[in-house]
């Protein structure tokens, strides 16, 4: 199944065994694009998929389930990933432009973006608690309140940044530049300056990120205030 001959380039009949069966197999490979076993495995897998779909159709709120299954792809591949890629790109360019030399710029960049990513990851698996999205249901079900979670998340975030800063400080002091950077040369001529649209987009994303950061900061202040009123 591993070898998948290209369509339009049928594999020459193997050895001297150019029997009729062999050529029919080659014909199949040519038309289908892979070995017969590939078709068998794919059809078996899709049959189980079809079974699950049939079961889902009998459930209440079928449309909701299908929408969420398709929405999962859209939300990740077409929204979340482009968004964080754009943010990363803005951060990389920002660090590269403002900090010299490159080694110091990279250390700074990573000492900020790694704890940020980890903090957002923790938020991803706890945001309904942190932002009290359905506090009434939680309180009714468990008999507990949601007050502690925003503070906990902020404390963990602070700890992540502290550790990261410490590591960066040690590495900045300790290591002198060892060897020059080796990067593979681009095979294309150097890229022209990014287009104005891209630049404007990058600025817009940066502005959105700043607004988001402000919003998170405001929430944090509010959460801290409600946890520890003055």
């Amino acid at each position: 199944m591993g070898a998948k001959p290209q369509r339009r380039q049928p594999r020459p009949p193997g050895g001297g065994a150019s029997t009729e069966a062999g050529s029919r197999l080659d014909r199949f490979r040519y038309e289908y694009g892979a070995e017969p076993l590939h078709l068998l495995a794919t059809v078996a897998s899709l049959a189980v998929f079809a079974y699950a779909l049939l079961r889902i159709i009998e459930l209440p709120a079928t449309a909701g389930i299908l929408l969420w299954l398709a929405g999962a792809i859209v939300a990740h591949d077409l929204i979340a990933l482009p968004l964080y890629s754009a943010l990363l790109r803005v951060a990389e360019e920002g660090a590269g432009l403002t900090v010299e030399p490159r080694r110091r710029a990279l250390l700074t960049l990573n000492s900020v973006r790694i704890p940020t990513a980890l903090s957002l990851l923790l938020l991803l698996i706890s945001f309904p608690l942190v932002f009290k999205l359905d506090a009434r249901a939680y309180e009714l079900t468990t008999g507990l309140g949601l007050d502690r979670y925003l503070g906990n998340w902020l404390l963990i975030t602070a700890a992540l940044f502290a550790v990261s800063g410490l590591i960066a400080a040690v590495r900045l002091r300790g290591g002198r530049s060892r060897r020059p950077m080796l990067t593979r040369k681009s095979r294309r001529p150097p890229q022209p300056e990014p287009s104005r649209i891209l630049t404007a987009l990058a600025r817009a994303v940066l502005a959105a990120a700043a607004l988001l950061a402000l919003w998170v900061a405001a929430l944090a202040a509010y959460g801290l205030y409600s946890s520890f009123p003055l």
Partner: protein
Amino acid sequence: MARGTAPRGPLAESERARRPPQPMPPRRGPFDRDFWRSPLRGRWLTSLLGSALLPLLVLCGITGFLSHAAYDPNLGSNDVTGGFDSGLYFFDWPTSPVWLYSVTQGLHVLSGLAAIPILLVKLWSVIPRLYERPAAPSLAKGLERLSVATLVGSAVFLLATGTLNVLYWLPFPFPFVPAHYYAAIIFVAALTLHLALKLPLLAAAFRREGLRPLGEGIEMMRVADPDEDSLAPTNPAAPTISRRGLLAAVGAGSLGIVALNVGTNLLPALRETALLSPRGQSYGDGPNDFQVNKTAAAAGIEPQATGAEWRLELVGGERPLELSRSDLLAMEQRTERLPIACVEGWTTYQDWTGVQLRELARLAGHERAEVLVESLQEAGAFRQATLNRGQVDDERSLLALRVNGAELSLDHGFPARVIVPALPGVHNTKWVRRMTFTAV
């Protein structure tokens, strides 16, 4: 040959015929392979992430289907998925070891959560594939991509709905259990095919490179060859992090999630370290101060229904019996240390005191029986549960009246609740009203 300068005359046709096929129009944006510039991408990185993800997903899958089995979907109305595939769960869920469900379900939730950062980065590592054109150069490739779509959709769906269910925020318009269950079946089918097709590539990447790329710091990092490796960048940017740096960050995320959640299940002594878990909070240190799955208020239990007039109905014998709470307290009492282990991945061990279920079965005239336990709760999928023969017969299975030497609190099921070793928490019915025994 430039356009507009085609030779005229008798040779023109044959000249045109010999012209090589026209190149495809240039692709733009993400459809242009040069758009994807990260020097980290390549088969080796994807393979390493895949080999970290695989054991977690296998563990999560096995423990997930075990959880379905633990609800004994063949009995009574235990099956809430409405499927006829409950026939696959041919065995009765055992009662030993008592921590069985606590561990399998704890591992289910932990492995699912720990998979999240690895899955995200793995999807990032293969995102250029989404934009490859033509989308289906052959029928084989087209079917494969359809299957990959079901793989990505079901994986993200499972992790999202599972996490939200654990967090008590249910913004989705469908019942969680059957949706999660059938999405898991889609996932298993797609993952199996994915492994059959991709494991040879993974093996080849490791045979070729071993773990050598882990030794490369950012200064010495090699970029994969785009001619041999379709995931490698054709137009690589200068690296801003090494592969091992990225992997270390992903590993830290995954381990951090485990560390922040393990206190709710596998290591209950460390509950307070579960800082971001909905079940990390302490209720206090009184005898009834432990995790409540659903309060009496949420279940709609009227306190007066649990007063002195409360009677336990025992049905299934020659004639129904009614027992008051003092009748039950007059029977032989037994104390067992047993866990409540919830499907959401949290566990709490307590000392329960009450009457053995098998004594109640004998009272109803049965030696070997299943039992349908019904609650005072009026609505909800789990206001009743059917227990299998082995669970009724186990000497540690109790109708608990007291906990940690005190009366049960209303939130913990006063006047009486079921507690059975290794049973999913929600099947340990609270506020028991009626028990119907059936000989088997």
